[in-house]
């Protein structure tokens, strides 16, 4: 009886592991295909020729620098403004709190696609099309609602008593926020920073509309506009795609926990 049950268990074990292994294999296959393909050189051997080729023919360095600027400036400003706003909405008696939250909700729902035309012509009017500051400002505005919602959740747990005793001890409000609240909110902040960095690094449609000057293009847009020429030369194409995803893969490798925390945190509102 007992052996029969354990046999049944091992059979189930094998099935579980087999399905998981096969599913993982199928999922990873396109990526492995891309990785191997990117090292294939003309004569059937392997080497870094394609990467050198992409590096020489496509402005990878300039595109990457732009992407780094847009992501870091965007996320930095987003987190600074967003954490202040989240703290204020959570811990201060703001009168129109409900209405402001509704506004943010609206911001979270609105698809970027629905704002492309106004973004372009409004920013053109302000002479902000094809400028770094223009796209960064749009990114901040688009990313703020989610940043505020997520950080509000983290600030909610901060004890009010602690704020009051800091006030009695003579701490000013900015000092309370920057010296006491922010330093202990590292977990929440890192979740937001990682999550929004990945989003901005991968952002496509807004950058496509607002940046078409060669020296301002982000890595995504640069790859999008140049890779068409390699559609038949797939080792080169694959090398380009790998180069474009390397930073985000490295970021994810190090901060997997924070990214997934942001993902599941987004469900709690």
């Amino acid at each position: 009886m007992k052996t029969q049950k354990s046999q049944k268990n091992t059979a189930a074990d094998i099935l579980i592991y087999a399905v998981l292994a096969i599913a993982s294999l199928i999922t990873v296959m396109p990526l492995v295909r891309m990785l191997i393909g990117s090292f294939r050189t003309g004569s059937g051997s392997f080497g870094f020729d394609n990467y050198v080729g992409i590096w020489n023919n496509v402005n990878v360095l300039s595109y990457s620098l732009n992407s780094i600027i847009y992501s870091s400036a965007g996320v930095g400003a987003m987190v600074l403004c967003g954490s202040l706003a989240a703290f204020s909405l959570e811990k201060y008696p703001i009168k129109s709190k409900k209405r402001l939250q509704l506004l943010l909700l609206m911001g979270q729902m609105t698809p970027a696609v629905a704002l492309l035309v106004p973004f372009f012509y409004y920013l053109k009017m302000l002479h902000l099309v094809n400028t770094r500051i223009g796209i960064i400002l749009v990114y901040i505005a688009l990313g703020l609602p989610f940043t505020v919602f997520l950080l509000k959740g983290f600030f909610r747990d901060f004890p009010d008593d602690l704020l009051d005793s800091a006030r009695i001890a003579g701490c000013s409000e900015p000092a309370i926020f920057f010296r006491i609240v922010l330093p202990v909110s590292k977990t929440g902040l890192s979740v937001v920073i990682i999550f929004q960095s990945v989003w901005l690094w991968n952002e496509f449609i807004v950058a496509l509309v607002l940046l078409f000057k060669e020296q301002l293009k982000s890595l995504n847009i640069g790859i999008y506009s140049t890779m068409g020429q390699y559609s038949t030369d797939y080792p080169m194409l694959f090398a380009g795609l790998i180069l474009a995803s390397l930073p985000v893969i490295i970021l994810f490798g190090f901060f997997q926990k924070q990214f997934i925390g942001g993902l599941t945190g987004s469900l709690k509102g």
Partner: protein
Amino acid sequence: MKNTSKPIQKTVFWGRLFLVPALAIFGLFFIIPLCCSLVLSFFSWNGLGKMDFVALDHYLQIFSDGTFWTSLLNNSLYALYTIVIGNIVALLLALLLESDVSTGNVKGREVYRFLLFSQFILSWVVVGFLWKRLLNPYDGMLNIALRTIGLSALTRNWLGDPSTAMLSIAAASVWKGFGFGLVVYSASIRNIPGQIMEAAKIDGANRLQIASLITLPLIRPFIGIVVMLNLIDAFRVIDPFLVMATAVPPKSAQVIGTYIYKTGFDYYKLGYSAALSIVMLLIVVVISSVYFKLQNRHGR
């Protein structure tokens, strides 16, 4: 701990001040463009000449615009494919990933999760080009595989053929996105109190019974939430359809997002594009309000 009124006033002042930077940027670069979109939808404008007031004409026009309805139908099909396939895959794998094996938890659970999830973080530019390559009619991996196993009859121009274009893009989308459901479901299964599972085992429930009668009902709120998020995404999607578009994309691969983009930036019918944007926004708002109701019922 009663504060005098003066410090309270000071506190309120700082609280308001903390809101200013966020509200300023949000107002200038979100609220105003959104209002522009609404206003523009009542005008006819090509971006250069003067604007003609057309009142509600664009909205009436949308109503009888065949391309709009085709696009809406395509969004719905895309939603159906990605939600059904993506969530079945995610649920099944999450149940397996979190199941008990005789040694306790599945060994290498984090490794599996990493392998199954990692493509989620890639951009649509990368995923789109990669899949375009894999689906290439001449030397793409899929057609080569089909030919090798003797199914040449099934090979086709996946993204160019009207009957398979949408399905192909949805397949890429499922591949890229099912990791989201997987991560959410596996986290919510892990949060089920251990006693419930123990009690079920003592009562002699087998794996299938536990999965169908205990685990699934307990994580149902999360399934609802993921499905709603997928639904919202399916109606505002544009990236995969732009990146994977063939030279002349078949009508079956046009969605509202690409229609808005084309009307605005290829045909310069800005007012009409803005009206389409408002309609898309309304669709998303309606779905979202259902979503928030669900979330409030089960959240917190």
